[in-house]
Structure formats: C-alpha cells, structure tokens
C-alpha cells in the first residue's frame, strides 16, 4: 500500500513568531523544522504500510526556498522518498493555493491513501485537508484518532465534540490525523544516515503544470489590511506560595461570589 503524507516545514515554535513588516505574514527565513503535527501522520503511515506488508510512504511538501530540514526528519523516521515543490512564486500562498500545489504533486504519486495533520502549528487554518480532497475529487475523513485499512476501504475513528464516530470510507481517500494518537518514533542513527541519500524530487510550480498566477501573492484572494496589538490583559497580583497561598485563592473566589 502506498501512502502519501503531506508534511509542512515550519519555523521552530519554541522561538517567538514574528510578522514580516513588509508582507505582514509569518517570517519564515530562519531554519525550518518538521511540524510536530505532521509527525503523527508520518508515524501512522509507516505503521499502515508495515501492517499491509508492502508499499511505501512518500512525503509531499512545499516551500518557497528548497528547504529540506523538516523533510529529512520524516525521511529519517522511515519514509521512502519525498516530492518537494519549491518555487519563489509560492511565497504568500493561502490555504486554497497550498491545496492546489499539493494536489498536483500528489497526483504524480498515485497513492492509495493521503494523510495530513488536521492543521499546521503555524498557520492553523485547518482547511487544507478538505480543500485537497475536493481538488483531488476524493472522499475524506477528518480528525482521525485511529485508522485501519482493509478490503479497499479505510476505517476511521473520527473525533467529535461528544466522543468519536466510526467512519468507513472507500480508498483512495484523504484522512487528516489528530495530534497525540500515535507515538512518533525517534529517527535512529541509521535512519538519519539513510535519509541523506533518499530521493527528494524537487519540482517547480511550472513542472506541475500550474499557472504561477494561481499561487502565491498573485493567486491570493485576500489582502492583509491591518496588523495591530490586541488589547492587552493586565496582569494582576502575583504572590509566592509560602504555604498560605490557597487562602488567597479562597478569598479571591469569595470576592467573586462563586463560592
């Protein structure tokens, strides 16, 4: 079984995010890493291929500048190869443009299953999985917390507000995976070494047969008109607990008449 996993390379979330004053979008000129949200999809895909007893995991990613740091991490986990769409024209691409690019790249891989995260940790729009499925004209299931494959269909436990639903879906399909559902493996030393020689097929927007005007700033249907500081919440009283801090909490709750 062949599985494609969409992976995003993002600025390290441990560093404070900044907006580019010119473009008013997230600055992404530093080192990029594999979005942790995507590591669950990679792990899930590796397990599914393993269970199926054959096939491979292909990564699909896009970046304006040939960045591969995050992709190498996923290759080191065990993915076989990657398709990276890299083109300066991609700068400023919105979620629909992203889905167009990923869909065009995924078509080349002819997968049985496409896995994504539910949302990225930097842009967190959360709409790309369904946009992607729509453009590929595939069925889809979002928010999967468990996936099993068999008889040409995928069985998913889909998280809901109240609990979860069992969902069945014919394949090929697009499935988005929630965080925390599997334990992503750490790349072994052998895996890290092997990742260096795994193929990364780098393509431009034109290679995919897409019009550069349909992606990036040119293809955007939105314009950022203002960026401003939100009304700040004032910090109140901060005290060090020396054994009596709980009384302070009781007093505070009393004042608010919630006791």
């Amino acid at each position, binding site marked *: 079984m062949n599985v494609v996993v969409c992976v995003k390379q993002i600025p390290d979330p441990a560093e*404070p*995010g900044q*907006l580019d004053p010119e473009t*008013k979008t997230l600055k992404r000129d530093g080192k990029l890493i594999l979005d942790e949200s995507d590591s669950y999809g990679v792990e899930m895909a590796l397990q599914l291929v393993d269970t199926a007893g054959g096939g491979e995991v292909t990564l699909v990613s896009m970046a304006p500048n040939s960045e591969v740091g995050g992709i190498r991490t996923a290759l080191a986990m065990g993915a076989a190869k990657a398709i990276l769409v890299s083109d300066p024209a991609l700068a400023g691409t*919105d*979620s*629909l443009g992203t*889905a167009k690019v990923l869909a065009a790249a995924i078509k080349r891989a002819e997968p049985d299953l496409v896995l994504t995260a539910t949302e990225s940790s930097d842009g967190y*729009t*959360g709409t*790309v999985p*369904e*946009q*992607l*499925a*729509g453009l590929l*004209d*595939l*069925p*889809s299931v*979002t928010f999967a917390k468990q996936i099993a494959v068999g008889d040409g269909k995928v069985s998913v436990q889909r998280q*809901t*507000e*109240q*609990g*979860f*639903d*069992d*969902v*069945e879906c*014919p394949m090929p399909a697009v499935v988005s995976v929630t*965080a*925390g559902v599997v334990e992503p493996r750490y790349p072994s030393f052998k895996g890290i070494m092997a990742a260096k020689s795994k193929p990364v097929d780098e393509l431009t927007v034109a290679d995919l047969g897409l019009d550069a005007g349909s992606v990036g700033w040119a293809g*955007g*249907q*939105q314009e*950022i008109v*203002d*960026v*401003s*500081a*939100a009304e*700040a*919440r004032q*910090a109140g009283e*901060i*005290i060090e*607990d020396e*054994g009596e*801090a*709980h*009384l*302070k*909490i*009781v007093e*505070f*709750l009393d004042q*608010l008449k*919630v*006791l």
Partner: protein
Amino acid sequence: MALSTVWVLAEEREGKVLPITLEMLAKAREIADNVEAVLGGDATAVAAELGAHGVTKVHATGDLAGALPGVPVAAAMAAAIEGGASPDLIMFGTTYDGRDIAGRLSAKLDRTVITNNVDITVDGDSIVVVEPVFGGSTNVSTKFSAAGPHLALFRPKSFEPAESGGGPAEVASLSVPDLGNSGGATITERHVEEREGPSLDDAAVVVSGGRGLGESDKYEMIEQLAKLLKAAPGASRAIVDAGWVPYSYQVGQTGKVVKPTVYLAAGISGATQHMVGMKGSKNIIAINKDAEAPIFSIADLGIVGDVHKVLPKLIEALQARG
C-alpha cells in the same frame, strides 16, 4: 452599507441549534439585510429557533443518511450558488463539520476561505475579518479581495447570541447533487464519551490542569476541585495529547474556547495554543512553579508555587466550608 444576503451554516444536536450558530446569526443580522441558514439535515425541529434568531429562510438538505456532512453539504451549497443563489458571505463556525464544509466549498467554488476569525466589519463593498495570532496578542485584519461569495470561519464565543423575535424560518429544500467519487465516507456508529459535571461551554467556573501535574493520576485533584466549585474540568493540549484525559476536556485553539467567570489554571504554563482558548475568561487564577510562565502575564491572581502543595490545601479549605 450592509450586505444583501448572508448565509450562516447552522448546526444542531438533538433538535437544538448549537450556540456557535446563534452567535454567528446575531452578527450576521448586524451586517446584512437578509440572513438565511444552511443546514445539513432536517430543519423541522429547528426552524422556529432559527427564525427567532433572525433567519428568514433555512436551506436544508434533509437527512444525510449517515454521510459525513462535508461533501454533501458543500456540494449542495455549490449547486445552489451555481443555480443562481448569491449570498455575499457564508459564515461557518470553527467546528469539525464547519471546517470540513468550508474547505470543500472553497475547492468547489475556487474561493479562498479565511479561518479563525473573531470579528467582521463591512464598509461598502469591503468585508474585513479579524484573526488573532500569537496567542491573541496581535490582531490581523484581512480583506476579501476577489469576487464573492466570501467564505469565513468564526471562533466560538466571538459574538453574543440575541433573539430577534422573528417567526419560524421558511424551510427550503437544498438538493444534494450526485457526489460521484467524492461521496462515500459514512458514519457507521457514534460513541458518546460521558463527562461528569457541567460542560465547558456553560460552566461559570472552569478548573484546568496541565503538564505541571506531573502524573496522569494527579488529574484527580482537578476533578475533585471542580466538583467542589461546581466547575467544569478542563485540560491543556499537552495532557490531552499524552492521553491523560479525553479530547473533549481540551481548552485551547484546537479544543474548546471558554469564557467563564473564573478560570483556574493549575500546572499550565500558558502556551499560545491554550491562551487563545481561555483569555476571554472574566477572572483568571494561575498556579505554576515557574515565575516566568506566560500564563502569569494574563492572570488576575498568580500563585508561584507547587500545584502538589497548593491544590490539596485548597481542596481541604473548600471542603471545610462545606
């Protein structure tokens, strides 16, 4: 100048319209002359409630026969629009189904969708939505620059619901076209995870625990405290991901947005993901060992201390009061 017609994606559970839908309807009435709803399901039980919140007409697909709503509802909306319906704007709630339907419709109509919004303003032809970023410290305002219909998702609790006193909404049938290859995801069984106590949506007090609790069994302290305060127990994403508590407990960007009178955060450092979900609380109490934890920057009462010492004493003090 107001918009002519706005569609709001309506969602219901067991014949009751979800709060997020009512919140969006209140805002929609402010910015549009005519507010209509779209419902993936049967509208009989909710036409009156939707009408009372200002909906003139509800476009309903009828029973979806177990299909996940993303594909059929988006296909039905797209077909209606191609058939001549022309909403200026379609508002979706940030819910599981809201995101699915908006994403599918975006691909069908080749229209961008702007997500995570907390506000919207209309000035002439210009529709601007506001999205908080960096844990809510910065607001980004974005204008739709292409032709409509414009698609936007809104976070729960961004607007106050308000009745308009209208009569029941007219119910119009919204037919689902042939879905071809993309249909076929079907719900075979639903599982409801029971939660104890009041819900995160309604509780006046929310008590949440995070990684600082150390071990999963320490979450019992949160539940005990919640019971004493008649509060809803909540959690940070870290301990939900770690499997200590079910997802339905999660407060934050990808979980529940809460606005209680009091929010007590125990052992939560205040990752932006979490802060987005609770900073609208009227009063915030935080207990954390690390004096530098970001949560203290928004807490009305911050206790720099060990949750394992403070919580048991707090529980004892509250028990003593009966």
